[in-house]
């Protein structure tokens, strides 16, 4: 019975780094589980996968997955990933990070990578707070939610992430909670196999910081909430999927469309202007 693994995801994890730093009830571990299953289902050679993450609790994913990975500085995983993809178009370049990293300090990179249809896949774990630094108000914190820097409730309008990704040009946009493990896994497979900028928002509980401060119960309570208050509306108008404190969560695959990736667009433009003189750049895209 040698070499029997306790868990099917174990071969993909750096077990020497365990135990991980995530709190009991945290949703990020579920995201890792779903991702490893998605990677298996997608049929992609793990040697051709690169994981890029930023700073924060979710950023730790890059250190725990036994894949080529890069843990960038705060906010920078998307431009790093674009650079990696442009230099090695044959790789699958996947970004795992939190909303505090991707949407605030790195927000400019997100909208421009979506606009240019950079061929990277972004898995954004949204737990509504800067959890690692102790729970300051973040860019998706619902109005009236409590954070250490908004002791009586947030008053800044939060980002609606699917709408942001949709309106800036992402070709694939989905949202699931960590309760929706099968749907999330399927969306990850679809995103991994789809050319262009794909954005999957994953609503995840932060029991230690966000749930506790907002009296939303523990991790299990969050799962019950996701189960009860989520509505699957595939193809929903992303303008309508904004979130409110203790409000419903619209989940589903919202956007799935095709347009030229950053490198394809470059090839098309130069080929049209230069004709046969232009040697197309490899794009890594099989259409």
């Amino acid at each position, binding site marked *: 019975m040698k070499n029997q693994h306790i868990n099917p995801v174990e071969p993909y994890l750096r077990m020497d780094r365990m135990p991980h730093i995530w709190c009991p009830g945290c949703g990020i571990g579920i995201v890792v589980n779903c991702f490893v299953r998605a990677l298996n289902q997608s049929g992609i050679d793990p040697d051709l996968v690169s994981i890029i993450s930023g*700073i924060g609790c979710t950023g730790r994913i890059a250190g725990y997955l036994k894949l080529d990975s890069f*843990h960038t*500085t*705060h*906010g920078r995983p998307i431009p790093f990933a674009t650079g990696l993809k442009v230099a090695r178009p044959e790789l699958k370049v996947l970004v795992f990070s939190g909303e505090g990293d991707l949407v*605030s*300090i790195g*927000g400019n990179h997100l909208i421009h990578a979506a606009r240019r249809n950079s061929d990277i896949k972004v898995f954004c774990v949204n737990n509504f707070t*800067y959890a*690692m*630094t*102790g729970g*300051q*108000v973040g*860019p998706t914190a619902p109005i009236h939610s409590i954070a*250490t*820097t*908004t*002791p*009586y409730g947030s008053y*800044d309008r939060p980002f609606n992430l699917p709408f942001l990704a949709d309106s800036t040009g992402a070709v694939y946009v989905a949202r699931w909670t960590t309760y929706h493990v099968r749907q999330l896994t399927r969306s990850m497979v679809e995103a991994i196999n789809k050319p262009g900028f794909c954005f999957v928002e994953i609503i995840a509980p932060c029991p230690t910081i966000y749930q506790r401060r907002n009296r939303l119960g523990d991790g299990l309570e969050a799962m019950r909430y996701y189960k009860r208050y989520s509505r699957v509306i595939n193809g929903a108008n992303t303008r309508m999927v904004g979130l409110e404190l203790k409000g419903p969560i619209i989940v589903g695959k919202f956007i799935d469309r095709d347009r030229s990736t950053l490198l394809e667009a470059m090839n098309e433009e130069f080929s049209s202007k230069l004709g046969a003189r232009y040697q197309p750049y490899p794009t890594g895209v099989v259409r």
Partner: protein
Amino acid sequence: MEQRLGLEASIAIAEVVCRCDVDIVAAYPITPQTHVVEHLSELVADGELDAAFVPVESEHSAMSVCCGTAAVGARTFTSTAAQGLALMHEILFIASALRLPIVMAVANRSLSGPISIWNDHSDVMTERDVGWVQIFAENAQEAADLTIWSFRLAEDRRVSLPVMVNFDGFILTHTIEPMLMPDKEMVQAFLPPWEPLLKLDVDEPISMGPVGIPDIYTETKQVQQHLLTQAYGPIVETLNEFAQHFKRTYKPIETYRSDDAEVLLCTMGALSETAMEVVDRRRKQGQKVGLVRIRLWRPFPFEDLYRAVGNVPVLGVMDRAISFGGPVGPVASEIKAAFYHREQRPKIVEFIAGLGGRDVPLSDFGRMFDSLYTTGETGKIPAPTIIGLRE
């Protein structure tokens, strides 16, 4: 009136910023600065501080907001650390060049990579040349006092420059210490309302930050250098006024049992207090050792340094950062340069210690003093040494 309290340096800074009646706090969370800003946001939310708290989307935005608010004459405070300070880099030059008297508390932390949230001085050493007044605290009392003083100095019309108060991450930010907290009346008696030297005003329009063509760029830089150097006078003057008002004295260069010392060690920041303990123990054993503690880093107080070092034959300098591929220790290299033209100059021994949160226990300071005595006896200056390095 002052109240004796046990406070973290972070909370102490937030409390005095409240008593300084700032108009704007703009900040982005980064460990170990977080408690400063969290407490300020509570004070604003509780109505104790009548200010706007702006939770921006990055440190680059934080410093940009601060420039905007200071430009219209609002008293402005922010706080950051490490990567956050590095991200502000570009705007730090703008704040000083436009003479915007922003006060910023820097919770000193190491720079990535590898990612490290722990304490050293690599963040501030990287920002040495940004044209800000830069000062170091050794404990919670000093962090609070120097923050109050910073507003007074920054807003002095002879100076009108931004000020950075450095206090060591975790060692100070997250440690509760006994301290005296002045009340608002006492702080405001020391810190009058700000009357800006220059501000954006629709009635008297000015433009800030336009292009400086080659014809004038050099002159603006000369003015900046002159201003920051000349700020030394107002710095000493306002520190003396602080001492009269609060009965706590601060000097650009502090010393500890240095008068009859055979060897001296130069330190900065919170580890100076550990070093003092070692000095006391060595003195009991009959070794005449002493400390020179740099409090004011910019403008660099050359004359104070010469006076503090005196005729001592051997001076050790403990750096908390590395100038890669260069002279190794940034503080040591400045001190060496400061002594180059002096006829009377000590042998200078460089130590690097406490990088990325590595503890510097009493025994490490003991090793440094031993090395200084060996240098004195042999006359040979050792190569720069990283203390506590695992081989």
